[in-house]
């Protein structure tokens, strides 16, 4: 049974440590297994490790699964785990940051491994769920014990060959033309799918992807463009499946002393009332209905419900009320509004440009003159990183750890000591700083979650960001194809069945 499917992006490389893209990670999951994996409800469950425990606050011990074989027939042992962990810890490994707090892995016996972290680290399992295990013998034979390194000009065979323990084997890999997977009959787990072959073809153009589905050349497209869902579901023999994604779209606000749009004047965004006014002025309901075609989920907080740190009480968007907004602006001393720049990508998030035009138009009604500029992601994100924007669009999915801590440590903390990597708007809140640092080492899960919720409440109350909505994940399939959807947008075809 063959499943042919397409997505707009391609697998960048078959080397799991040489990239940081969640799409490629999700694809390689069909070939490789991690020590722990996420199950049907995204809960963490044993994979190549059957059990684990913390022997010291900074040392975790993993019992490995026996009788597991790699695709090339080699047995899976602790050596493979150690070699793999060493490989990702290499300075040349692109994905090294995904395991940033791990210091080393040590073999205890053939089926036991210790992993040592820098101090207590509650999210180790979350991280390990994205770390795939490679075959040591194969790496040795192919000179791939270290990942390719651009700085030294080393390339490895691992970029184009994937030998894992996963449910499928790679039959062929042709960038931009397609990758073919065939089922691995010797997989250690009992398959829940009925596929023998997966033909994956990247199709960048949305319209072409839809057309190819409708013409019967594909069985599944993921994602399906929002504006075409209507057409697909009304076509005979096809259906749309959808679910809100973890990715949350928000507006980041400039907290520097001056706005780019009003050099030499005080930054109005520093005033909480102004920020609240901006929130009040956005008609989230209409954006959801018109721009997102009723598929998105409006949110008032910075994480999605399935993610640790989410709390219903935080999830309260400010009501749409233009008059209230105007009143707040007058109170803040801007009865005639003010000028700002609004920057958005136009090829990153779902209907991003359209959303921004709508916001600019809504703000204009409240007196906020936003000069909108949209551009491609390649130039947009570097400029955002450099903090060149006043108001800009940010999307955050908390991946790969899938934990609210990611929002705190990247978006809400000051840029120092490894924190605040994406907080280019320079929002600083001492309370959040403190809570974040405490949560980082808190191994008690309930306590940790309370801290996350508390910090996110502070962010909500001070309008650190203006959250807009959760993007939808919409896929389309032909009848007879059953694929479960996940909010992390991973395609997990080992759960898929076709008729």
């Amino acid at each position, binding site marked *: 049974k063959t499943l042919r499917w397409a997505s707009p992006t391609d697998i960048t490389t078959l080397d799991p440590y040489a990239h940081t893209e969640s799409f490629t990670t999700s694809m390689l999951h069909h070939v490789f297994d991690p020590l722990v994996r996420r199950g049907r409800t995204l809960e963490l469950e044993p994979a190549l490790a059957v059990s684990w425990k913390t022997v010291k606050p900074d040392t975790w011990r993993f019992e490995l699964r026996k009788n597991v074989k790699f695709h090339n027939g080699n047995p899976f042992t602790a050596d493979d785990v150690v070699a793999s962990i060493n490989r990702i810890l290499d300075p040349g490994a692109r994905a090294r940051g995904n395991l940033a707090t791990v210091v080393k892995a040590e073999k205890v016996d053939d089926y036991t491994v210790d992993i040592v972290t820098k101090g207590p680290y509650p999210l180790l399992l979350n991280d390990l769920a994205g770390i795939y295990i490679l075959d040591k013998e194969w790496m040795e034979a192919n000179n791939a014990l270290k990942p390719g390194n651009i700085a030294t000009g080393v390339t490895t065979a691992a970029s184009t060959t994937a030998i894992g323990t996963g449910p499928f084997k790679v039959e062929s890999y042709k960038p931009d033309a397609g990758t073919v997977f065939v089922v691995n009959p010797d997989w250690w787990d009992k398959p829940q799918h009925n596929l023998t072959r997966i033909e994956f073809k990247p199709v960048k153009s949305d319209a072409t992807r839809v057309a190819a589905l409708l013409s019967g050349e594909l069985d599944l497209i993921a994602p399906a463009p929002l504006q075409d869902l209507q057409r697909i579901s009304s076509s005979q023999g096809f259906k749309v499946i959808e679910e809100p994604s973890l990715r949350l779209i928000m507006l980041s606000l400039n907290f520097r002393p001056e706005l780019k749009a009003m050099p030499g004047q005080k930054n109005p965004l520093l005033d909480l009332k102004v920020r609240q006014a901006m929130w009040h002025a956005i008609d989230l309901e209409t954006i959801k209905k018109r721009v997102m075609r009723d598929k998105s989920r409006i949110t008032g907080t910075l994480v999605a419900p399935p993610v640790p740190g989410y709390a219903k009480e935080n999830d309260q968007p400010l009501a749409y009320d233009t008059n209230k907004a105007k009143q707040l602006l007058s109170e803040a001393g801007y009865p005639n509004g003010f000028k700002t720049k609004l920057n958005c990508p136009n090829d990153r998030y779902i209907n991003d440009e359209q959303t921004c035009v709508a916001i600019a*138009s809504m703000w204009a009604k409240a007196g906020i003159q936003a000069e909108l500029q*949209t551009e491609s992601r390649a130039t947009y994100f570097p400029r955002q990183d450099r903090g060149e924007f006043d108001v800009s669009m940010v999307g955050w999915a908390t991946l790969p750890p899938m934990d609210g801590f990611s929002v705190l440590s990247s978006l809400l903390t000051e840029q120092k000591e490894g924190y605040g990597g994406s907080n280019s708007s320079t929002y600083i809140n001492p309370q959040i700083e403190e809570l974040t640092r405490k949560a980082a080492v808190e191994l008690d899960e309930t306590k940790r979650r309370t801290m996350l919720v508390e910090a996110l409440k502070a962010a909500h109350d001070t309008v650190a960001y203006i959250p807009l909505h959760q993007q939808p994940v919409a896929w389309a399939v032909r009848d007879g194809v059953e694929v479960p959807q996940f909010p992390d947008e991973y395609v997990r075809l080992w759960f898929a069945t076709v008729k």
Partner: protein
Amino acid sequence: MKTLASSPGFLTRIGAPISVIAAALLALVIVACSILASWIAPYDPTNLASFDLMNAELPPAFTAEGDSRFILGTDNQGRDLLSAMLYGARVSIAIGGGAVLLAATLGVTLGLLAGYFGGRVDALIMRIGDVILSFPTILLALLVSGIARAVFPGAATAEWAPVILICAIAIHEWVQYARTVRAATMVETAKDYVRAAKVIGLPPRRIMLRHILPNVMSPVLVISTINLAAAVLTEATLSFLGVGMPPTYPSLGTLIRIGNEFVFSGIWWIALFPALALVILVLAVNVVGDWLRDRFNPKLRVKR
């Protein structure tokens, strides 16, 4: 309006057939409408406060579900499509026309020089051309806008966008003109009439402009009338990449691009009307261009 009224008479006097007059009039009307957009458009699509997302994607007034306020319907943001098109045509014509003019002028000049002098001059110009050709318009546009921003800090504003776009497109396009003109110039330079001009003692500049140029214009006219369409569409691409017009001031090309996303879902008018406007404009310009080109050849001048 005076020129408008008197133009058909003028055209018949110089022997233009009726189709050319019609085409010229059409082109003039489109240009005039776009120039007068701020007066004749029912709404101001650049005024962000004036449109409402709730009105988005309303079909044209003449269809069953149409809304009489919006003759040609609305776009995905609730802008009146007709107004957006009128304003958009202004951008497209200014940028497309400007880019074609600039590219043609630059290309023809360099092509004449290369073809006439040959040797080192030729090699230099043609190799510069090769360098330019090695970059797609997208990258050149990024470069131009980047440099413009660096040199004039104010250039990031929307007012500068058209200038940057014109330069970016023209910098890429001139090569095509230069190479075509060069080829034709090489042939013409060997002909007796050019030799005669040399014998008179005319300086190269004058020989090139007065004698050779009219004889090599025919492919230039063909290319530039065709490139008008290409330039309008290139503008849309560049705007999409962020080096052009902001999305709050869409051009015809941008409207087509946006509309294209909705064609599948049965919202055909957003793409169709701007595309029609563009096609009509291009057709009209080409018809006039053909006729002009024929008039350049005195042998074809007399009405057949």
